[in-house]
């Protein structure tokens, strides 16, 4: 444990933050710009994982393992969310033969 922490701490914290921000921004842009529902899902996962990484980094730097515990929780929640989301996507695909999210505007009004 101690060696991993010291290895992690060799990289400055600001690098982690910049990297995670970049990942998160890519995720947000992907969610907003993509029309393919599957790609949006992937972007959402990207955002989640950027947050996870940041949590792990802070946890290492502060010598506080609870941050890493959180990461596991988030992974479980993300897995559950993906299971439901993919199931929804399958249903949408079955009914409309496409996973373009613009097709969903049929639901308006």
């Amino acid at each position: 444990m101690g060696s991993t922490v010291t290895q992690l701490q060799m990289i400055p914290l600001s690098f982690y933050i910049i990297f995670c921000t970049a990942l998160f921004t890519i995720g947000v842009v992907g969610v907003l710009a993509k029309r393919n529902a599957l790609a949006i899902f992937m972007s959402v996962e990207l955002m989640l994982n950027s947050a996870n990484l940041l949590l792990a980094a802070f946890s290492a730097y502060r010598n506080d393992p609870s941050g890493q515990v959180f990461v596991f929780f988030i992974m479980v929640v993300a897995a559950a969310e993906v299971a439901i989301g993919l199931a929804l996507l399958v249903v949408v695909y079955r009914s409309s033969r496409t996973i373009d999210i613009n097709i969903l505007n049929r639901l308006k009004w």
Partner: protein
Amino acid sequence: MQFISLLLLLFPLFGFLVIGLFSRQINKKYAGVVASGVVFVNLILTSILFWFVTTTNQTVETDLFDWIKFANISIPFALTVDRLSALMLFVVNGVGFLIHVYSIGYMKGDDGENRFFSYMNLFIFFMLILVLSSNYLMLFIGWEGVGLCSYLLIGFWYKDHLNNNAAKKAFIMNRIGDLGFLIGIFMIFHTFGTLNISEVATKASIMPSGCTALLIITLGLFSGAIGKSAQIPLFTWLPDAMAGPTPVSALIHAATMVTAGVYLVARSSVLFVLSPVTMNLILVIGMFTALISGLIAIYQNDIKKILAYSTISQLGFMFMALGLGSFSGAMFHLTTHAFFKALLFLAAGSVMHALNQEQDIRKMGGLRKKIPFTFALFAIGAIAISGIPPFAGFFSKEMILSVAYEHGMGMGIIATFISLLTTVYMFRLLFVAFYKPESDAVKANHSVHESPLVMLIPMAVLALLSMAAGFVQTPALFSSNNLFEDYLSPIFVSAHQLVPASGQNLSVLTEWLTLLIPLTIIAILIYISYMRFAKERVIAELSGIQKVMANKFYFDEIYNFCIVKPIEKLSLFFRETVDQGIINRLINSIGSGTLYIGGRVRLLQTGNVGFYLIIMAFSIIAILFFNLIR
């Protein structure tokens, strides 16, 4: 005895419930028999009570249960049979029984026969409550109840809208008077702390004459009497009430219900004698009512309308007697009037029965030979009501006239004039309908027939009563037979003690003159109207004042213009402007405003998921940014 007075109420109620609830099951043949039987039992019970009250000189007090009881208010459901109510019991049950029997024949074949008889029994029930009640509140219940039955029976043939309107008119005009009655009752409770009639009388007898509380009370009670007894200004409902079946007109609108006002004033005699202003008002209103309706009756052409105006006129005459302080005179005229007016109405019904419900006397004529029994009975009624000796009307009118002459010569002459009007319109009716050569309508009608016995016999009994009932009270001139006055004197003794009769006694000569001159005039009037109406004549155009009389002094038109139309305008204003214009528009604008806003806002919901996400992302950024700069 107490049980009997209770039975008196239960029998008609029983009759009403049985006939009313099982009206579909009961054969029409039996409804009338049941209803009449119930009233006949009542008549027997009344005789027992009458015998008891007269011989033992007691009043029968029946305290059934506490009806209203809270705080210091206690109003029992209690009945009182004294001499006055025993007399009224006789009138209600006696005349009521005869009219029930008559109705069996008259209503035969009508669709609503069962309904009719159930209403009639209900009427008897409420009338008995009115007569027997020992407090003013129960009297009011009976008062309203008979009003309800009057409404139901005027509008009995409800398929014709005119009848419904007449029923509503009667109900509403009664309501106006009843408002005053209710105020009077409240005022009685406020002043005396009790509603028991005899207690009120005892407590009132020590109050000073003419005090304000008594004035308000008596004015209130009298306004109820004005409505119920069809006096000016609330009399216009009674002629319209003739829309009901004729037995109803005879029972309710001639013999019993409309005399309830007279009964009320006589019941409260102590209160009224202590309020001279009200007494004078009663006198004046009675006088004008008797005069005006007597004049109107002369130019009417509807047989029932003539009798209706005649009833109003006679009621006005009774109120004159009350105003003059002769309570027993009023009650005497009430009793005899019940007999001969019921007889006249039943005879008129018999005429209509013979002529397919024809009511216009101009389309009659020559009926003397076609329906001789009806003619004879009608003539007896006409003679009795005109005050020709020795029939009943003569004695009762003479009693009132002598009081009027004692009050003053002018008053006497006015009263005589009013009673002479009776002769004019009754004999005009008699000659036009029965003597005049047959009209075309009668000639064309081959089914003119005498009424069945079931109708003729009650009329014959009433005719006997109209002939004989007067002898219980003969004028002082002939003998000292004061049976009627003595009978009622215990009731009015306290009233007469408080305010002794002020009139001076007349000399024997004036009494003879006041008796003989009117009789001579009556004879002349009959001769004139025979010459004028019994022969074939072209009906002269009405001119000037005659037209005004024929149009009932335009009372209905004036009321229409002064009261009905403004209220209608006001209602229209409230409906169109206030309700539709303001309230409705306010409510509607809330609805339409919400719809408008919704219409705009829903455009935001494009259904485009990308758009939603952008909104979400920028909103989060905005919130974070906002938190940052705060």
